């Protein structure tokens, strides 16, 4: 049992931090690509900006500015600084529910990225700066895992993180391999950048060796059972955590979010990359993004904004 508002805040902390981590990585890969051939850099930047929802070729050409604004621009609702500020604001509202160890990690991160010298710190070493943000986010997750009770509150935190992750990875793959788009990515350096954006390069190499093929990337990032950033892995966790939190709800037999999550999980369990190749990846990726949005709404309706009439004592 926990306050509905608290569950909502924990869920959003999970979402915002996952978003901050993902976009930090996109910015990092963009910056890194500028070191290589220029067309690969532009292509990488284009992939990243499209995944964020801002496919602007002119902007992609100015990779450094685009990366910097993705991290530090307070006017950009997707920027890392905004995600971290919102996560921290939510954490402050549920300060009594998260452990001090967890809170201090997040607060430190927030204080650093909102401090007056954040811009100059970024300029004097952008890659190191982003690297530190990601490392701090990992510390937050580690602290949460090691110090918070793995009960209801933690499950809401995880639900937010995995729903966000499934959507972000699906979106990234859609940009690269969705059909009907001009120039699906085939360039080797751009493909490596894509794997880096999913934090998947090293695990991929171990699994498929250095033969980097779109087909393998799709298989790995959509269907792999063990890689934590694959869509299948995320949807399995979403279903698991929803089963966990729904145990306590006497809902009117609907259990909507749980049912939706189970269906999505099954969908990914019983599809494979051959099917994806024959009909195109778009349909499945669009389903993932759409179903995650439905689960998101269902969670809100079931646990947070439920109608009082249903729950009042007779």
């Amino acid at each position, binding site marked *: *049992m926990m306050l509905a508002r608290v569950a909502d805040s924990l869920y959003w902390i999970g979402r915002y931090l996952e978003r901050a981590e993902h976009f930090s990585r996109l910015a990092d890969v963009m910056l890194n690509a500028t070191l290589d051939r220029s067309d690969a850099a532009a292509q990488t930047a284009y992939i990243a900006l499209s995944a964020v929802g801002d496919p602007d070729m002119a902007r992609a050409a100015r990779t450094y500015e685009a990366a910097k604004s993705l991290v530090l621009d307070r006017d950009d609702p997707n920027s890392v600084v905004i995600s971290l500020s919102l996560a921290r604001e939510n954490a402050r509202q549920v*300060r*009594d529910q998260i452990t*001090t160890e967890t809170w201090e990690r997040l607060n430190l991160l927030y204080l650093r990225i909102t401090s007056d010298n954040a811009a100059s710190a970024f300029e004097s070493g952008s890659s190191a700066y982003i690297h530190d943000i990601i490392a701090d986010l990992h510390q937050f997750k580690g602290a949460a895992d090691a110090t918070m009770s793995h009960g209801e509150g933690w499950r809401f935190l995880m639900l937010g993180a995995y729903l966000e992750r499934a959507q972000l990875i699906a979106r990234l793959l859609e940009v690269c391999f969705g059909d009907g788009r001009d120039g699906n990515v085939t360039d080797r350096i751009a493909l490596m950048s894509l794997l880096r954006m999913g934090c998947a390069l090293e695990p991929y190499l171990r699994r498929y060796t250095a033969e980097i093929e779109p087909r393998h990337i799709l298989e790995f990032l959509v269907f792999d059972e063990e890689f934590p950033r694959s869509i299948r892995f995320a949807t399995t966790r979403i279903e698991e955590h929803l089963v966990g939190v729904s145990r306590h*709800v006497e809902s009117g037999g609907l259990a909507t979010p749980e049912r939706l999550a189970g269906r999505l999980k099954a969908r990914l369990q019983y599809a494979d990359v051959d099917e994806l190749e024959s009909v195109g990846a778009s349909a499945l990726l669009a389903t993932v993004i759409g179903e995650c949005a439905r689960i998101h709404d269902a969670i809100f309706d079931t646990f947070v904004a*439920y109608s009082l009439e249903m729950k009042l004592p007779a």
Partner: protein
Amino acid sequence: MNREEAVQAEEETDPGVTATSLVNDDNPPGLPITQAAYIPGQAFDEMYEAAGEVRDHYSAVHTRLTTLSPEALADRQKTLERSFLLQGITFTVYGAETTTEQIIPTDLVPRIIPSTEWDHIEAGLIQRLRALNMFLDDIYGEQQILMDGIVPRELVLGAPSYRREMQHLYVPHKAYANVCGSDLIRGEDGAFAVLEDNLRVPSGVSYMLANRDAAKRTFPGTFRAANVRPVERYPDLLLKTLKSMAPDWRPDPQVVVLTPGVYNSAYYEHAYLARLMGAPLVEGRDLVVHENMVYMRTTTGLRRVDVIYRRVDDDFIDPLTFRRDSGLGVAGLFNAYRAGNVVMCNAPGTGVADDKAVYAYVPEIIKYYLGEDAILPNIETFLCREPAQLSHVLANLDKLVVKAVGASGGYGMLVGPHASRKERETFAEALKADPANYIAQPTIQLSTAPCLIDGRIEPRHVDLRPFILSGEKIVVTPGALTRVALRRGSLVVNSSQGGGSKDTWILADDGIEEPQP
């Protein structure tokens, strides 16, 4: 190396300690504390006797201060401030471009009170709160004290903090003010007196706890040797007090902390107490009243609430009963309270007993209900509503402190000796226009205590806010918030007016028993 040793080692290997600084009497350059810099002035000084001798109970801290270099002290101050910032013990400053977090200034030098002095304070506080609770029970009941003419009727019934709605309501144990924070000051003669009582929603207790936490890390060796009484039981004493307010037929009462929300300046404290008590921190929008029962919205449906430790002012708790424009409260909460289905702590309407004009009558109130003289005296107070006292106040504006009855936080007051002629004249006009709204008190030179100011130890004026809990029993936590006026010579300790705080050590007698709920 075990922890004990680690602590010891930290003390001994401190870079500030050199053999010469321990034996040299000639104020070696660079030492932060020298008699020359530390000029106590006419106020009572907590550390030095008038003759310049260090008081016994301060000797260990004094020695420590004289052996630490300014750099070492500055380092510790920095560590302390950083830890407050990290913990989020901050308030937010909203600027045009950025928002920044600021900590409330915290001084690392502890303020020390010996046990005999504390015993006297404790007895005085218990006596005072017992009498004030009886007073509240009386004025919201038979009003005997008004009929006997001890306190003027119009003073009580006309006070803005008087709540007609509370008339004839049952309050368990007659404990109206479950949490009380009284402000004590020490005058030039060294005696403690009560400056004001805070019976509404007193804050600051989280600083008492956070400062203690910090002091233990700043001066571990000195702290251990000093035999300081613990304050760490406050949260569970508070929880027991709150639970004792629930009716017997609710065996495991659900206690919640009600906060106005994250933008309130005391939000950190609300979250801190909720976390340490293990009680949910709720906002008005989390609560629902249905058929005079209060529920909170949880993920698994509605759950009954029994006791609300509310940190929301009377005016805002229920838009149906009090201010209609309040979005912070819960519609119907007061009716649920009236029906006896939920307890609010503190009870609404307690503010009438800490009204600045009613304050003047507290010694008589104690005498009336308990037949005892007040253990802790009041400060002499002039009620401007009385014409004779008003003319005295107007004639002596340059010597008095004048306060608006309804205001708090150091606002709406005039410190006569520190004000310009023009300020005094403007204030005199306001006073004459609405005399009943003002009281005046002599300007007291609050006692001074050593503080770290720009790398030196200097005296600054302080007050003392202990916290008293009353439910089934009255319990005083052996500790307090010491508030500091950080500006040189300033007598205003409120944090809104450039005040800070520091840890307060209440020393133990051997064999003392810690309070049990």
